[in-house]
Every structure is written in C-alpha cells, then in structure tokens.
C-alpha cells in the first residue's frame, strides 16, 4: 500500500548530516554516524544552529498532549467481531457480477440508442469545473473593501445582521488563510473596530447572533496570526468573552438581546457556546469554566436524548432545520462522554435530511453538520456549484435567494455560508 507522498529529493552531504540529527539525539545513530555528527558539530556553526533548532522542535513535539479514547472500545470491537456475517456480505460477489453486467449493458445501450438531453441531472452537476468553495471565497476576497469590510446591505443583506455576516465572510477567508492572509488581517481589524463599548458586536434584536459569530471568527483569526500579531486581539477578545459571560441567562443559555431575565434560545446559545469552546481550546478559559458548563447543560436540556431539539423561547417554539446540527456540534465538542453520546444521537436522527432540495440550499444547517461529521454531501456540493454565478464580476458568488436566510443575509451571507458548508 502506497502512502501518498512524493519521493524526497536526494540529500547533499551537509543535509545528510542534518538528517542524522534527530536520530543522533535519540541515540539511534550507529557508532560511525555518531562520530561523523560529533566531528561536524565541533566544526560547523551552521550545523550547531540546526541541531539546536531540531532539538527544540523535537522538544515541542514531545510536549504535545496525548489524546485518549473517550468511549470504551472493547465492547464495540467484540460486537463487531461476534456479529453474524450479514446476508449482503455473502451475496456481494454475485451482486458485483450482476452490477458489472448491468454497466456493460448500459454502455452498449448508450452507444446505440439516442438519448434525450436532460437539463439538471447529477451528471450535469458533476461536470461543472472548479471548486465551488474556493470560487466563492475568491469572490468574497474580491468584494472586500480596502478597510476590510463587506457592504452587506449593497448585496441585499439587512443592516442589523452586517456584523455577523462579515464574521462569516472572515471565517470563509480563513479556510484558505495563507492565500488570503492580508484580507484576513484587514477583516479582523475591521471587525474589532465594530465592537461596542460594552464588548458586544452589533445591536438590536440580533445582537447576540452577531456577537457569537464575530467572537468565534476573531478567535479563529487570532490563531492564524504570527505570535507578534496576536497581542493586538487581546483587548477585543477579552471584552467579547466577558460580554458572553455577563449576558448568560440563569438557565445557562442566551437570548436574542443579551439581557437578564430574557428567554434563552438554542440557536443563539449555540453560537456563544462555540465561541466559548474555541476560547477554551486556545487556553483562554479553563475547560471547567462555569459559563461553559452551564451553556452545555442548557443545550443538553434542549436536546433531551437527541430525538427533538427545542428552539426554546416562548415566542418561537418550533424546531428549525439547523437546530439539531448546531446542538450536536456543541455537545460533540464537549469533553463529557454523555454529552457526546447525545450529540451522536442527534446526528444519527437528524443529520441525513436533505441540505439541498428543489432548488433551495440549506448551507447554515449543512455547515454545522459538516463541522460535526467529516463528510460533505456530494449532492449538496453539486447543488451549490449549480447555483454559483459563472461569469462576470460576480463570478463565484451565490445569489442570496437560493439559500435559507439569504433573504436577510444577502449575497455575502449566501456566498460565505455555502463556501463554509462545502469546503473540503
């Protein structure tokens, strides 16, 4: 079995010695190699510097924390080993032969019988060239203003959602952070400038939506900056995270407005929880921070055992399409095995719903599902590619009304969200 690696170029004599350094430090060199390395180290300052750097990297690597299993593997292994061989497995060779004959027959038929042209079948989708995610991100980069902002309103979005939509656009650029390094830095600076005195982002009835998304985007953006640049994020992020903690409602969730005594809802709470979890990953808050524990307890309560995830306000009580996926993602990211179990249950129950149906895309839900599970639905990807503008200055963008919530988020939202949802 081949590992997908190109064969390394041959090393010159100096590189040969450098290549021995890791083995030398681990005592794995032969006596002859050890002498060669030690002789060269005495004479070559360059090799000494290389040795120091190599040792430092090895030290950093060995200091990385070890991951462990979070569920008992033993039972699952024996269940797999002791399961009876399914009928399908026994019939598989016959099925393969039948399929082969069918394919050969189909090819012969296609070559001899004239076919009517079909407008929109999966083959048409698959034939579209390019990567829809990168094309969408390229449009976002082209439509970004010099000051790092996006004109959300110009592209059909509502003003009160502008901060959150730009946060999503920043997250889309971050998918290819090396290419858009400069655009990422400008967007991050612009978003930091939008922070209100109290630490929040955005205002009005969707303040907490904006706030959770922008905080998450800035936390992610901070991570890709060089160490020297990260300091500039500190005041903004400290205030933003404090605002999340201050506005947590008694039940552990968050409402739309970020006020005490407000009814919590699952969607707003999920965004704050994702921001807190990212902050926890970056060591900004401890894993057992009460604000995070209460948030997860709220989401667990909303999820029950995973069958139905409640939206959870007095005004809006129905389950929206994205709700289970948002909740599942937060629970799967928690360190609590029971919460993870519920997260998996939710995914199993809800994640297979169509994310593209009858010309309508559900990128918001698709993104959460993709974050929680590694696969991107090929059908969804094809549907996104099909709706993408192909030519002209808006090439790569995705028209607002093709996507859920596009009527309020506009083209910047639809393009960013779909780019995030289909990024591989």
């Amino acid at each position, binding site marked *: 079995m081949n590992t997908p690696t190109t064969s390394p170029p041959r090393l010159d004599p100096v590189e040969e010695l450098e*290549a021995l350094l890791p083995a030398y430090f681990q005592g794995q060199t032969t006596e002859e190699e050890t002498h060669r390395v030690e002789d060269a180290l005495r004479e070559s300052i360059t090799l000494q510097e290389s040795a120091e750097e190599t040792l430092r990297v090895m030290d950093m690597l060995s200091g990385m924390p070890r*991951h*462990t*299993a979070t569920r008992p593997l033993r039972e699952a292994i024996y269940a797999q080993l002791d399961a009876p061989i399914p009928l399908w497995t026994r019939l598989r060779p016959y099925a393969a032969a039948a399929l082969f004959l069918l394919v050969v027959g189909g090819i012969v038929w296609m070559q001899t019988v004239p076919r009517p042209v079909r407008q929109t079948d999966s083959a048409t989708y698959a034939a579209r060239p390019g990567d829809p995610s990168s094309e969408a991100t390229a449009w976002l980069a082209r439509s970004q203003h010099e000051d790092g902002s996006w004109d959300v309103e110009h592209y059909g979005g509502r003003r009160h959602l502008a901060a959150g939509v730009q946060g999503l656009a920043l997250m889309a650029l971050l998918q290819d952070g090396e290419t858009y390094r400069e655009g990422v830095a400008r967007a991050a600076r612009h978003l930091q400038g939008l922070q209100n005195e109290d630490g929040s982002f955005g205002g009005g009835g969707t303040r907490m939506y904006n706030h959770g998304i922008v905080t998450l985007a800035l936390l992610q953006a901070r991570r890709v900056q*060089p160490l020297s640049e990260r300091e500039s994020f500190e005041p903004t992020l400290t205030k933003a995270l404090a605002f999340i903690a201050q506005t947590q409602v008694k039940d552990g969730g968050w409402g739309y407005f970020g006020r005490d005594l407000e009814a919590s809802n699952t969607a707003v709470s999920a965004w704050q929880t994702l921001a807190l979890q990212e902050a926890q*990953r970056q060591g900004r808050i401890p*894993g057992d921070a009460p604000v995070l524990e209460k948030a997860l307890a709220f989401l667990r309560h909303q999820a029950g055992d995973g069958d139905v995830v409640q939206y959870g306000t007095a005004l809006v009580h129905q389950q929206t399409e994205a709700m289970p996926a948002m909740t599942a993602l937060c629970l799967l990211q928690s360190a609590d095995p029971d919460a993870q179990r519920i997260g998996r249950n939710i995914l199993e129950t809800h994640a297979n719903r169509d994310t593209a149906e009858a010309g309508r895309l559900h990128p918001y839900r698709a993104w959460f599902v993709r*974050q929680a599970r*590694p696969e991107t639905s090929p059908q969804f990807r094809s549907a996104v590619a099909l709706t993408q503008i192909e030519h002209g200055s808006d090439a790569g963008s995705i028209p607002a009304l093709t996507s859920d919530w596009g009527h309020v988020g506009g083209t910047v939202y639809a393009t960013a969200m779909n780019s995030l949802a289909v990024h591989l």
Partner: protein
Amino acid sequence: MPDTDALDVADMQATANGDRAAFDRILLRHQNFLVNFFRRLGACQGMAEDLAQETFVRLYKWRARYQPTARFVTFLFTLARHAWADSLRMRGRRIVMATEWDPDVHDPGRDDSARQDLHLDMQDALLQLEEGQRMVVLLNTFEGLNYAEIGAVLGIPEGTVKSRMFHAMRKLRAYLADKGYDDEHANNLSTTP
C-alpha cells in the same frame, strides 16, 4: 519494569488460542496510542476511535497468523496505517482535520493560553507535512519507533525514513519560525527543565 513487547507477544499467542482476556490486555495497553496516532494524523475524535476499533478488529483476525518477527508495535502500526489508508480511500480523502475542532486537547495544570497556542500551532504544523512525513514524525516522536521499525511499518527503506524525517523537521522549523516561535518563546515553553 516488565518487557512490554514480551507481554504483547505472549498475549497475542494466548489470543490465538482463544483467550480473550489476553486480547483485552493488548487493547488496554495500546488503545490510547492508536487513538492519539489517528488524531495526530488529522482525524477527529470520533473517527480516530473508529479507526482504532478497526485496527483492533484486524489485529484479532490476524491472531492465528501473527509471527513475532519484529516488535509487536511494528505489526500493530502496520495494521493502523492500512486502516488509515483504507479509510482515506473510502472517504475520498475527506478527513476532518483535527484543528477544525479539537475538544479534548486538555492539558490540566498547563492550560495557560501560550502553551495551548503552542499545542495548536504544533498540530497545525504537523498537518502542513506531507502524509508520509507526518507518519514518520508521529511514529518516531509519539510511538518511539526507531527508523528501521518505521521503515517496516511504512514499507520503505530506512534511508527514506531518514530523508523524510529531515524534510519534516525542516518544514516544522520553518513553519514555527514563520509563526514567530523564536528561542525565547521556545525556552519559556520548553517541556523539559
């Protein structure tokens, strides 16, 4: 300290004779190493556990044919590599990278922001490597396999292992330097006294 390899070999032979308790002991000794291996290769937690499970299932099926010609972990990680390659093939190489979300990089007692940054940057740095280079670094650094053993696991000559290690180290050094990890940072964050 008992010789782990001797224990593994004895337990594999006992497993071949139908002793599942012996297989349980192998599982307990190695399951976390495998989960960590797959996580560092880039799998998310759920997938890493699934792949560890798959590796143990394959190990069990091999129990009667197992010959202790090399250290047991060499055999185990060969199976792990095959499980990983099969999984990539089945998923069309769409593996969720651990940095996308990584809930359990907990390091209690060392959870300061700078150290957590370092761990995340190290994981990012590992993911910049070509897969063959990453495998070499992981097997050497985390699993303690020597170059000859890594060569056996990956099916490549020892010289290629050395070469991959060299290029991997260069890339890691360049990536970390680009991020701004200079001597001072490294010394402050050093894991050894």
